[in-house]
């Protein structure tokens, strides 16, 4: 079993409660089984008694898919035990043992058939082929379907910076969503196909607004054995390196850390520096800097898999706002989608790209 390679994590987490307060799912479900301790207890029994434990206790598998994979607990842990990696290994075991819950299998099936989180928005910039492009800009599924303004804003900034940009908009999953669901082989296949597109473009620098896509290309692909041979940047670091003609903003904003940027790549400073460079005044969101406000971002398609939990996460975030008029900024198109399009009350939220584009000197 793949989870055997996480024995040290099981041993460390199974009796440890020290990150209960920031487990993303548990903060809204209040379930003992939704903290790393609870999941480790389940998986310890599986380790001792085999995969049949999932048959004896059908809710064990479903519980593993309730995990939002924010990795906030790993980031918090003084020893950084990889609780998220343990869940991913167990999901992979479930897939390979053909014991994955039906709703997960159905979603994975759609992703394998090329389905996106939603139909591509008519406002989303179309793919382009640009000779001697400076960069390729990768548009993720959530941006393409629900947040085309993120891509539009990025291209506006790039134009102001005088960049030649080739727009790349994959027709299906590039591997990330499948990987988080445990479908490693299918993810690798998708990754290999996309890597070929990357290599054939001949473009040396790839930029994306999606922290999930960034994480896929930077961390997952090498682990899957898929080489890209290009430089990959998230827009937060890339835009920070540009000399942009900016007018100072006179606004106070709350920046919501991305799960992938903070908890997987320790990128907390560049997005804030970027907003500060635009003249925004930043205020800390919520009561603490540790819990996840990604609303399931780490699980990539959490809104499709667990809409009820996603709604509760949104409710919790809204409840933590200082005032209903607060202006939030997120680096994640997924998070922006959940905040802007799923549920009420309406929340004022901008992507990083929109926040920057709004300050371009006219």
């Amino acid at each position: 079993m793949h989870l055997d390679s996480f024995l040290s994590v099981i041993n460390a987490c199974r009796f440890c409660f020290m990150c209960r307060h920031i487990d993303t799912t548990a903060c809204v479900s209040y379930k003992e089984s939704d903290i790393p301790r609870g999941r480790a207890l389940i998986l310890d029994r599986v380790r001792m008694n085999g995969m049949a434990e999932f048959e004896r206790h059908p809710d064990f598998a479903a519980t593993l898919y309730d995990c939002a994979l924010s990795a906030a607990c790993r980031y918090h842990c003084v020893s950084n035990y990889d609780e998220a990696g343990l869940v991913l290994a167990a999901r992979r075991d479930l897939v390979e043992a053909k014991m994955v819950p039906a709703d997960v299998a159905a979603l994975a099936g759609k992703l394998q058939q090329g389905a996106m989180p939603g139909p591509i928005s008519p406002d989303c910039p179309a793919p382009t082929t640009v000779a001697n492009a400076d960069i390729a800009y990768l548009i993720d599924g959530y941006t393409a379907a629900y947040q085309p303004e993120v891509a539009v804003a990025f291209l506006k900034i790039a134009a102001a910076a005088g960049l030649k940009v080739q727009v790349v908009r994959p027709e299906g999953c590039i591997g990330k969503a499948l990987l988080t669901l445990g479908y490693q082989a299918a993810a690798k296949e998708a990754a290999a196909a996309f890597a070929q597109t990357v290599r054939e473009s001949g473009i040396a620098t790839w930029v994306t607004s999606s922290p999930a896509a960034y994480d896929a290309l930077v961390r997952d692909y090498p682990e899957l054995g898929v080489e890209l041979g290009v430089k990959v940047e998230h827009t937060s670091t890339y835009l920070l390196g540009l000399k942009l003609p900016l007018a100072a903003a006179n606004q106070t904003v709350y920046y919501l850390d991305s799960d992938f940027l903070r908890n997987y790549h320790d990128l907390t400073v560049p997005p804030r520096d970027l907003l500060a460079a635009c003249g925004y005044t930043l205020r800390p969101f919520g009561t603490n800097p540790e819990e996840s406000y990604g609303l399931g971002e780490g699980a990539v398609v959490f809104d499709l898999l667990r809409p009820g939990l996603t709604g509760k996460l949104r409710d919790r975030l809204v409840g933590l706002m200082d005032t209903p008029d607060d202006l939030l900024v997120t680096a994640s198109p997924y998070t922006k989608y959940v905040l802007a399009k799923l549920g009420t009350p309406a929340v004022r939220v901008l992507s990083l790209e929109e926040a920057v584009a709004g300050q371009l000197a006219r």
Partner: protein
Amino acid sequence: MLPSPDNYMFRMIYSELLDAVGPEGIRVDDSEKLGHSIDYYWMPEMWHDRNQPPRTPDVVVLPDNTQAVAKVMKIANSYKIPVTPWGGGSGSQGGALPVYGGIILDTKRMNRILEIDTESLTITCETGANTQQLEWAVEKAGYSTMHFPASIACATLGGFLAHRGTGVLSTKYGKIEDMVMSLEVVTPEGEIINTLPVPRHASGPDLTQLFVGSEGTLGVMTKVTLKIHPIPEAREFHAFLFKDMHSAMAAGRNIMASRLRPAVIRLYDGPETAKLIKKVLGIERQGAYLVFGFDGDKEMVDLEMARACAICRQENPEDLGTEMGKAWWDHRYKFFYPPYMFQLPQAFGTLDTVATFANIEKVYWAMKQTVETNFPQATYIGHFSHWYEWGCMLYARFIIDQPPADPGEAANLYNRIWDPPPSPTAASSTSTTASASSSVVSCPSSMAPPSTSSSASSEPSIPTAS
């Protein structure tokens, strides 16, 4: 316990509970049962480690208001079903375990802050609040609960109330019983009562204090008003390494006798200094590590700190300075994370005991002798925390690196350590322990097996404070 799920009576009772707490508040899935079958007590951890079947509840209910708690209690009382309150499950003595099955009443959905009174400096909130989340919220409002136990991240406020939880800064700000103003409680019969709104009265017994530390046996605490404090201008620490525990104890005692007001004093014995302080803070020297801290107005802190340091220097310790004092504060929770905390297969237990300064060292040595004489395979370590004008708490632990592999034998050995000395020989060799324990030591939960008779309880902390 409840009837079997394939019995229609189970369905009837389930239906009543569902009506009481709503669909979001009732769970019978195996994941949740497993999660509630193990708390921070070594015994269920070992039982799980040896792949033994867990003792699970039949139903987990999560009421989200006091009335729902009252309904659950009435249903349970009507059908004579055991109810075990559960907060964060981080109690170290098994108090939250569903030893009779039945209902686990998990309080975590009752986590609302109801009022912060900035004039009286109090907060009223529900008892299922996670204490770290609560502290963060209070800090955002510009105040602090000043309750910083090691289990702050995992335990609930109700757990601390039920088990007299203690935070690191208790020497100045008090334990939970000193912080509480008033309580709302649901009795086992389902009656909702409120204690008086303030903790000082002209006459009569104090009903609030009757419930504090009652481990859930007298009811489920659902709402509490606590004191809060302004965030101090300064908080500073200093550490010394004494040649032995006795001289360090003298220094600590003299600080308290001088009536300075340290927020914290913590003294580690030689073995714990060697084992844990080395591991967490990297101090690799023989001796007893003593750290203390003051907070408040900067001017006052500087004055008190200078006086306390002068008292310590009378014992000729090695001065580790403010840096190693601050390092202890910064890493105070690190001791409780893996791999710093003791872990299976080790067997370990906490024997916390409070005594006067005249007796606390006698208790330490007697307890150490009792453990090490009767159980040569055990190591005994301890530290002294929560200092009062008259004494302090000994937070002692025994550790067995290789307990028996057989779960029954391991459980028997573990339980024997908590028993009185087993033979006349051992008894005579530990007379000091027997004397100290019986006459001067307040020992509420230590040296005794966890209660299995109660139908209720929640959690203390990961051994509180420490």
